[in-house]
């Protein structure tokens, strides 16, 4: 769905820190302050699908907790639907769905059906909305076979599907998903991604997702927010990110003789007669690449592909890590 201008989420100069107290000896404690978020600002408009990524400890979960009203920022403003989620928690939660991938909202000792009925009563979902949503979610997430199964008996993928359906049961306008693909196999992940795209495009739900799987995020979201050490390091599209980090591409050659390393290319892998090189597409345009490859004798096969987004981000994280170490 195309985003409109209505601002659903707004973080303005948000700072959140935690004070820690560590024992250094039997009598002495050391106090320190850890900044989980440091002057972070961004907005999310209705209908947007944003990915929120960063290395471990970057502040992703803290941001989600601030958005869900579970924590309060020490500085700055957090607004969801124009209201402070800590102050107007009940009103905000009626319009928001929150899913923490490592936790479940399902009632453990009850069938899946019971959790949905529980949510209907607690969220006061009207009968017609409940019936419509249940039948749609059952169909889209293939929940019918699980409907009367005890939650404790579900596999991880089944549990995530049921949890996701439960999150969307009250027709939320904003959905915050913290690691929704955590631990899912390839097929389950594929179904989850397809469903989230559908929810965004057809149901018009505004989504914000965190994950460590960058390929998943790249496929799902049209906007990427990268956070590093509590600061927003990047906010834009994937294309913009690639432009920023360099348009890294891979070329794989199968040769009958030892292949030299042409100028501007970096050998990243060699397996038998297969050589993999990395190059920056912005610096080496395709005609020049072909000219370089033409100089290599005995080429039997050439494969070209853009570098995996995961690798690009890993490089970025590594760079940030090195900068952080250097700053210390």
């Amino acid at each position: 769905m195309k985003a409109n201008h209505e601002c659903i989420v707004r973080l303005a100069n948000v700072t959140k820190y935690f004070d820690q107290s560590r024992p250094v000896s039997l009598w002495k404690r050391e106090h320190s302050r850890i900044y989980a978020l440091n002057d972070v600002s961004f907005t999310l408009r209705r209908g947007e699908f944003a990915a929120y990524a960063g290395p471990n400890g970057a502040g992703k979960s803290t941001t989600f907790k601030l958005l869900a009203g579970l924590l309060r920022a020490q500085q700055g403003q957090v607004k969801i639907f124009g209201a402070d989620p800590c102050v107007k928690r009940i009103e905000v939660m009626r319009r928001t769905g929150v899913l923490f991938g490592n936790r479940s909202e399902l009632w453990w000792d009850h069938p899946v059906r019971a959790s949905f009925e529980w949510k209907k009563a607690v969220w006061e979902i009207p009968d017609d909305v409940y019936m419509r949503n249940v039948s749609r979610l059952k169909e889209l997430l293939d929940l019918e076979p699980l409907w009367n199964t005890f939650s404790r008996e579900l596999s991880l993928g089944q549990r995530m599907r049921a949890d996701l359906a439960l999150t969307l049961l009250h027709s939320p306008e904003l959905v915050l998903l913290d690691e929704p693909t955590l631990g899912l196999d390839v097929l389950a992940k594929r179904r989850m991604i397809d469903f989230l795209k559908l929810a965004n495009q057809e149901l018009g739900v505004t989504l914000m997702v965190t994950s460590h799987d960058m390929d998943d995020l790249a496929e799902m979201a049209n906007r990427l927010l990268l956070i590093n050490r509590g600061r927003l390091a990047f906010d834009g599209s994937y294309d913009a990110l690639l432009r920023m980090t360099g348009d890294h591409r891979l070329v794989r050659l199968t040769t009958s003789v030892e292949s030299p390393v042409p100028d501007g290319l970096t050998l990243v892998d060699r397996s038998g007669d297969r050589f993999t090189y990395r190059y920056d597409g912005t610096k080496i345009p395709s005609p020049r690449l072909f000219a370089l490859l033409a100089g290599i004798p005995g080429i039997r096969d050439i494969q070209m592909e853009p570098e995996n987004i995961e690798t690009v981000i890993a490089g970025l994280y590594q760079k940030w890590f090195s900068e952080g170490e250097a700053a210390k």
Partner: protein
Amino acid sequence: MADKIQSVLRLLRLYARMDLNWVMQDFKAALIVVCAEIINNLTAVSGILLLAVRFGGVGGLNTDEILLMLGFFELADGLCYMLFGGFNVLHISRRIGRGQVDHMLIQPRPLIVQLLTEGFMPVSGSGGFLIGILLTMLAWTRLHLEVTLLRLSLLLLYILCHTLLTLGQSFLFGSAAFRTPVASEELSSLILDLNSQLRPFPPVRSAPLADEPVVYGAACRPAGLSAVAGAAGQADRNCTDTSRLYRRCVRAGCGMLLPRGYAALSAIQLQSIQRHGPSKLKGRKTNESKS
């Protein structure tokens, strides 16, 4: 207000239905749980009862009064467990320590409503309550007490006080789990266990201060004391003159006021922690490490 009460009643009905469903899903297992609870409760009171039978009473109360005391405690404790025993509402430090308060905060309901309703388990948690009714009725019959409106009201008042005190203690101490989640996870259980350990003992005549409200004020409330107070009140013991009646009222009043104090403190602590995070080191010198 009426809407809020209706909403609470609706939620109580929901949790009652869920509890019934749980029982019906595996009736045999549920029956075993309820029976085990009944046996456990009977065992807990049998020791002091046998002593009372052997020595013709304990701590200034005769055997039947001891039976009434035990019945009162089982009734009050059983009701508390039935209303708040489910999903660790009574053992709130477990929920806090395990990070389950997050689940509550994402529900569009006031926290107080959730705490009042989520623990309701009228079927699977009714063992202690049933034993309490049985023992109390037995004691009333043996003491030839008339069932009057006043007596019933007094019983209800004492039960209410007991429930509020128990909840207040559990919440007040249990909220320490916000600061030290792992270390304090079982704090509520420890507090409730302390009550359970002390509940069969009627030390009312063994310590001069025990009969006074200061016992409540000091917050070292051996549950047996409140049970004795309840039992003594029920048995019309030493309550013929006005000063005794006055004491009884003071006890009841303290019983009413203190839990409110507890609740207020707990609420303040909860709110403070929610607003400022679990660690507050204001005013202390800190090494800022902006990361």
